[in-house]
């Protein structure tokens, strides 16, 4: 899955560590999701969407 977390994070002037703290995950997890190396679970995707006040499909897009 592709995502625009890096852009949204930059818009809110958040570091990966700050975003990780807000999502209650490790910085490595935020980094892996941003790079598309790891797809988050649905609950985590919802937390991300809620945090940026967006719908999940606005943030994540299927590559297929």
């Amino acid at each position, binding site marked *: 899955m592709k995502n625009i977390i890096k852009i949204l994070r930059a818009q809110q002037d958040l570091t990966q560590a700050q975003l990780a*703290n807000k*999502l*209650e995950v*490790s910085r*490595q*997890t935020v980094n892996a999701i941003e790079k598309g190396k790891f797809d988050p679970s649905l609950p985590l995707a919802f937390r991300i969407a809620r945090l940026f006040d967006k719908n999940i499909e606005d943030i994540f897009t299927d590559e297929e």
Partner: protein
Amino acid sequence: MKKTAEKWDCNSRKTTLNLGLWTGAWVLTMALATFGPKFLWEGNSTLTLVGILINLAIGIGVIIANKKHLNSLDELQRKIQLEAMGATLGVAVIFGLSYSMLDTTNIISYDAEISHLVILIGLTYLAGTIIGTLRYR
């Protein structure tokens, strides 16, 4: 929100430290139960049994601490641990049984010790964790 995040991070560190302490205690009691009969209490069976039972009890503590540690990890960290555990289980069963067969068929001249398997398990798990961490970096 910040408090919850700090609590998560704090809990994660706490369970990791807790697991380290339990594992350290387990290794120490293992050394005590192994070398005690020879160097400390000269073959006293009662003390040896007590040493083994203490080691067993602390071993159960290690299992519980490990479960708590896994529960404190986030989903990527759990995935890394799961992949490392899966690889370790496969390697332990496949290589362990092959190694045992080498011993029972007398192809190797020495005994296939359980400690060799434990070393293999430890190294495989360590390598699996490092590879997983690097893969998702």
